């Protein structure tokens, strides 16, 4: 009998305390969605912590950016939007903007001007690819290789990926057409400036897939930015594609025997959107956060923690040293002049038009 009583008492105590615990949270908080890992950590240090110190707002992290489009659609349909600010790449931002799921931003009134008074629209310049998109960083997708597995002949060109004779072993690629098809055409002899014209044709697409066919048996297909670093650390692949910040962390922070190929790096933008349909109070807070977090100094601060280039022209001269390692960050940016010279700019308009078709074609090819 005593046992029963104990259970009952515990139960009611737990119920009461849970109600008290849950009720004690105040609404001075906002949910920010991002990519997790070292990237979220850099935002925490550079944006969230100073903002919380300044305003007293508690910031909650939700690492759901990879499913942001689908989740925002569902939230919108259920009329239950729980996110305040969302970190997405440029292409999904355009998509969300077209569907009316993201708030339109006027850069000159809603974003901070540069310290010298240059309006935000000029400071961000070409990076403002959509009315809803607030650019934050420039990152690139590129290759890392195991220095101890390539012998005396370290690869210097992205086409080493397709050269299984000189560099035998597995390589990891993303299981999506974006980037992989461009690299295939580039290494099949198409000039950088012609790639998207070729890729727009049926023959060009088949040509890219035929080039990928030559290494299909040697490829480990990955779906997340964290897979390739793990595979490289294990020595399961000799080279693999991932984001340049992940490779920086693998090489400089984790001290793994890995080096980077800057050749053929595909540059992309990442930034914020604010979901449409927030209550006026929450929207005002989200805009206040964005104004703070994308000013010149804050964007330069983020580069202390991760090797992604700030999206503002005025931030570039302020990029300093890594917060823990004390190494100069400027040469590790995808936007550094010597890295930029061999870069490859992704064509958003092309992928906006062809993405669905090529996705289907690519997945069918993968399954063959």
């Amino acid at each position, binding site marked *: *009998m005593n*046992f*029963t009583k104990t259970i009952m008492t515990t*139960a009611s105590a*737990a*119920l009461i305390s*849970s*109600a008290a*615990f*849950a*009720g004690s*949270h105040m*609404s001075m*908080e906002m*949910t920010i969605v991002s*990519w*997790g*890992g*070292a990237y979220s950590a850099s935002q925490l240090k550079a944006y969230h912590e100073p903002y919380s110190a300044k305003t007293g707002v508690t910031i*909650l*992290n*939700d*690492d*759901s950016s*990879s499913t942001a489009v689908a989740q925002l659609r*569902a939230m919108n*349909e*259920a*009329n*239950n939007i*729980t*996110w305040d600010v969302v970190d997405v790449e440029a292409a999904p931002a355009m998509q969300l903007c077209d569907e009316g799921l993201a708030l339109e931003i006027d850069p000159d009134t809603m974003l901070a001007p540069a310290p010298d008074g240059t309006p935000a629209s000029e400071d961000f310049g070409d990076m403002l690819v959509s009315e809803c998109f607030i650019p934050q960083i420039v990152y690139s997708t590129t290759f890392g290789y195991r220095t101890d597995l390539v012998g005396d002949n370290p690869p210097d060109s992205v086409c080493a990926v397709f050269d299984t004779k000189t560099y035998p072993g597995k390589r990891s690629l993303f299981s999506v057409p974006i980037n992989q098809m461009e690299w295939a055409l580039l290494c099949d002899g198409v000039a950088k400036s012609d790639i998207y014209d070729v890729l727009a044709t049926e023959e060009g697409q088949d040509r890219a897939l035929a080039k990928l066919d030559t290494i299909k048996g040697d490829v480990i297909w990955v779906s*997340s*930015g*964290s*897979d390739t*670093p*793990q595979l490289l*650390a*294990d020595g399961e692949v000799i080279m693999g594609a991932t984001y340049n910040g992940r490779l920086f962390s693998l090489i400089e922070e*984790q001290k793994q025997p890995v080096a980077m190929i800057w050749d053929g790096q595909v540059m992309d933008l990442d930034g914020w959107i604010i979901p449409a349909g927030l209550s006026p109070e929450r929207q005002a807070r989200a805009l206040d956060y964005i104004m703070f977090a994308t000013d010149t100094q804050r964007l330069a601060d983020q580069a202390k923690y991760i090797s992604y280039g700030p999206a503002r022209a005025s931030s570039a001269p302020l990029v300093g040293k890594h917060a823990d390692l004390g190494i100069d960050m400027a040469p590790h940016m995808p936007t550094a002049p010597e890295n930029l010279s061999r870069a490859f700019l992704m064509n958003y308009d092309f992928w906006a038009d062809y993405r669905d078709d090529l996705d289907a074609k690519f997945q069918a090819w993968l399954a063959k």
Partner: protein
Amino acid sequence: MSEPKNSFLSPFVFTLICMAMMGGLIGLVAGVANGSGPLGLISGALFMFLISFLAIFLRQKELIVRYSICFFLIIFGFLFIGIIGVFLGLILGWFSGWFLYWLNLGRYRAKLQPYLSAGQVLWHYTFRVICGVIFVFLITPILVVMPLSFNAQDFFTFTPEMLRFDPDGYSLKHYKDFFTNNEWQRSFKNSLLIAPVATIVSVSLGTLAAIGLSQSHVPFKRAITAILISPMIVPLIISATGMFFFYSHVGNFLEDRIGLDKNFVGYVKVILAHSVLGIPFVIITVTATLVGFDSSLTRAAANMGADPVKTFFKIQMPLILPGVISGGLFAFITSFDEVVVVMFVGSTNQKTLPWQMFTGLREQISPTILAVATILVAISIALLVTLELLRRRSERLRGLSPG
């Protein structure tokens, strides 16, 4: 056993064959790992054959023989593999010494009935080996996680330092990360809040439902049971999608019309959703215990003037308690493990441990997940052991078992 069979297959030959087979098997595994299976097979078999041959001639001095096999294999392992070889050599040496005598002196028959045929003895041990293999198959994935959680690097990899048992290869930093990282702590607290409350709700409602359904006068009993149990049968992702839209409306109503706090409503939504998932387990286990419940006891209680509530708590509840507890345990684990529904129904404030592990695994492969897994395994074992001890204690107190 002085059957004529023994002259055909003397213990001597039998032992040699078995030992050679064992050596061949180990050699095959080692050989495949190093690139040449057949070579490993043959050399392993020959090696064990020779050792056994020598040992059988000296078999009167059991201790000396077994120690020297151990010693020999340790040296051998150290020379060829290193520190790990010492451990492997020790284990292998001890095992082969024991196996040799076990076979040669017929110790395998010592604890069995003397009338069993050779085939029956063989099956007796084969059965145990099969059970052992299944056990290893079930438990290895969990055990592999534990040493990796002490990795000094940020990857799911056994580093060379770890394999050399170099202290530099090990660290507690992933445990430190779990206990100091805000996100992990918040999700841990959420799990500790949501799972017990959801368990209490599902145990109360599920027990009530099971008792109601066990009454003889309830109409459409089967249909009601089927509906109540459906959350267990419907694929989770479908329940989750439905719950997402349903609880969004419920939540909007509670927030906008009644004016409850947003966070509080968030917890209520997740707890209710998890309770729905837990209720079928409670209904099933409690219904099963109710089958053995003698309903004349409740009539006797009523006869003596107890009201139904008192009868339930004093008579029925103590008797069906084992079923209630195991149902509650299932409900707890369902909620504690659940990741799909909470990702749909909850918002970031209600992020639970499995959710955090899931995103951590997808976005960044960090051994903190392994540290958390190790802690959770330890907690689960502690929880089960405690419950089992409590159950035995209460059984002993009630005189249900001889203890």
